[in-house]
């Protein structure tokens, strides 16, 4: 359901499109010249909340409405979930186009729909009731390849409470179809957005989510170094001086669109970025450092956005500094990341036009604010991107040491030995199920899952309250 505030945001986005600076013409030309034949990349949304999925599609539609007459392939969105085809078709008009659909009323976005079986909300139930969980992952990758051929998943939105979806990421190195491009000569960064809603991090029901994060980051056999996982706070902020509400939908749509433009080279940093860019290039040092912390799989970061309330051209140092700090606060909201666990910070300013003074000040002030907030962070990076179709914002990503973060989590929650045993038992059952003919190739994956669970269980037991 579209909230009242989101409707207001649509009005503002629509009004913003009338302001067309010279930079927009450059971007439109680049979209025509640089967009690959298969499109900017495939956004895959694996979330059970049909409202969220629908709103992301609509906000992306509002952003790309200005591009309908640009001669470039549309954005590709792959929706994965239970009943999603039927439910989306009930709410919106879908026009079949080969293996894909257009949502009537939305230009420049083609969607595909992959239906999955119902997923239990806890690992032990998934392993018990869906013993063919590996086949489900294979089915999803087969379905994806049939629609997209050689194109890869570029951006992924994951539900925090659907272990079946998490399994797909964990099994990515074992999938017959390389849908994430991990076996490519130069694998591209896959950005995984994990909105922490409806599950928070502070309760024992976050056990399964924490295990997913543990397995994806700590095991090189589950996930890959080219995955970035971003945790998004579910906190909703409505500020009087900002017309765009700070909510998951707007943040996700803005970030997904920005990433696609940046990855394809349609948008390039204005002026020289300062520090390390951290996001797409110069990642080697960050990855090496994370490796020293035992991160052999995906990198883990928290993400936050602060929308800019004032006329961007009038922004002075003090305001920029304040916005930079608030963007960091948004990323940290409800996350309980200890300062000493932070390794790197990145800020990207999305502005509607390129003004030398503003760009320079954004870079200088951001670097100063970030280094004051986190004295010990080893990597800082700032860049300014000019994207006139988005509401201006300061986007912060904070990379941290996953193991230390999980230790803090384990100290704060109480998990009974029984709920740990039930996962172990279900994993044993899963491994035995692989003795059947034709299942041998999944044995390694099951061993990796069991190994990750054993380590995770040790962590929880050693640090749980009362231990």
């Amino acid at each position, binding site marked *: 359901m*579209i909230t009242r505030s*989101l*409707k207001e945001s*649509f*009005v503002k986005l*629509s*009004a913003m*499109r*009338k*302001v*067309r600076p010279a930079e927009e013409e450059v971007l439109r030309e680049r979209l025509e010249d640089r967009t690959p034949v298969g499109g900017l990349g495939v956004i895959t949304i694996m979330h059970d909340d049909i409202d969220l999925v629908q709103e992301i599609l*609509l906000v992306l*539609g*509002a952003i790309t*409405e200005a591009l*309908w*007459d640009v001669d470039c392939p549309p954005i590709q969105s792959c929706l994965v979930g239970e009943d999603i085809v039927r439910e989306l078709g009930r*709410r*919106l*008009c879908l*026009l079949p186009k080969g293996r894909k659909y*257009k*949502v*009537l*009323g*939305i*230009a*420049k976005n083609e969607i595909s729909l992959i239906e999955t079986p119902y997923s239990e909300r806890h690992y032990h139930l998934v392993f018990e009731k869906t013993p063919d969980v590996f086949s489900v992952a294979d089915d999803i990758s087969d379905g994806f390849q049939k629609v997209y051929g050689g194109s890869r998943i570029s951006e992924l939105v994951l539900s925090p409470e659907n272990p079946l979806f998490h399994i797909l990421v964990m099994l990515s190195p074992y999938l017959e179809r390389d849908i994430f491009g991990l076996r490519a000569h130069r694998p591209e960064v896959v950005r995984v957005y994990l909105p922490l809603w409806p599950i928070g991090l502070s309760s024992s029901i976050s056990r399964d989510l924490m295990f997913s994060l543990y397995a994806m980051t700590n095991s090189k056999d589950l996930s890959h170094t080219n995955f970035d996982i971003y945790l998004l706070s579910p906190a909703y902020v409505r500020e009087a001086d900002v017309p765009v509400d700070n909510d998951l939908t707007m943040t996700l749509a803005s970030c997904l669109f920005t990433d696609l433009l940046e990855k394809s080279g349609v948008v390039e940093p204005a002026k020289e970025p300062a520090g390390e860019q951290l996001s797409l290039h110069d990642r080697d040092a960050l990855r090496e450092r994370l490796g020293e912390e035992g991160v052999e799989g995906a990198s883990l970061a928290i993400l936050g956005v602060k929308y800019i309330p004032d006329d961007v051209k009038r922004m002075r140092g003090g305001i920029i500094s304040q916005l930079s700090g608030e963007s960091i606060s948004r990323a940290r909201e409800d996350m309980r990341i200890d300062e000493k666990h932070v390794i790197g910070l990145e800020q990207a300013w999305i502005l509607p036009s390129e003004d030398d003074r503003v760009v320079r000040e954004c870079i200088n002030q951001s670097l100063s604010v970030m280094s004051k907030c986190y004295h010990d962070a080893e990597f800082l990076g700032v860049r300014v991107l000019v994207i006139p179709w988005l509401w201006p914002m300061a986007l912060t990503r904070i990379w941290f040491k996953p193991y230390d973060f999980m230790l803090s989590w384990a100290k704060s929650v109480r998990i009974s030995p029984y709920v740990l045993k039930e996962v172990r038992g279900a994993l044993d059952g899963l491994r035995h199920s692989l003795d059947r003919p034709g299942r041998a190739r999944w044995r390694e994956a099951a061993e990796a899952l069991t190994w990750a669970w054993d380590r995770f269980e040790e962590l929880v037991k050693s640090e749980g309250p009362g231990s």
Partner: protein
Amino acid sequence: MAGGQASSRDEYRRLRNHVERVLFTKAAEMGVSIPLEEASDAISRLFMVVIKCSITGARRGEQGKSLRINTEVLDDIFDYVLHRLKDAGEDIISQIKKLAEELEEKVLNRCRALLVPKALETFGALEGGSDRP
């Protein structure tokens, strides 16, 4: 160009003519016969919904235009409509009525009203000042 009323009328006609031209070209290509006389009210309503569903803001510097037709959306909608009408058989008038309702609810109200609210407001004003019967 004359005053506000005349330019509204011109703008409104320009948009209508464009949509009408596309509809009849596509219908002919797909071999769909639209019974204009029998279904004039139903067609009229469907036609207005389709125009509203495909209205978008004009680009800066497009002289004399406040609105444009988003031709990608228009093409999609006509593909949808004509495919449905092609299979409608003798029940074409009730199918046209159903389509108008469906597009109004699912495309206009749930989608375009959010994506292009200002353009629809502007179109509403043009419609009011167009002297249409």
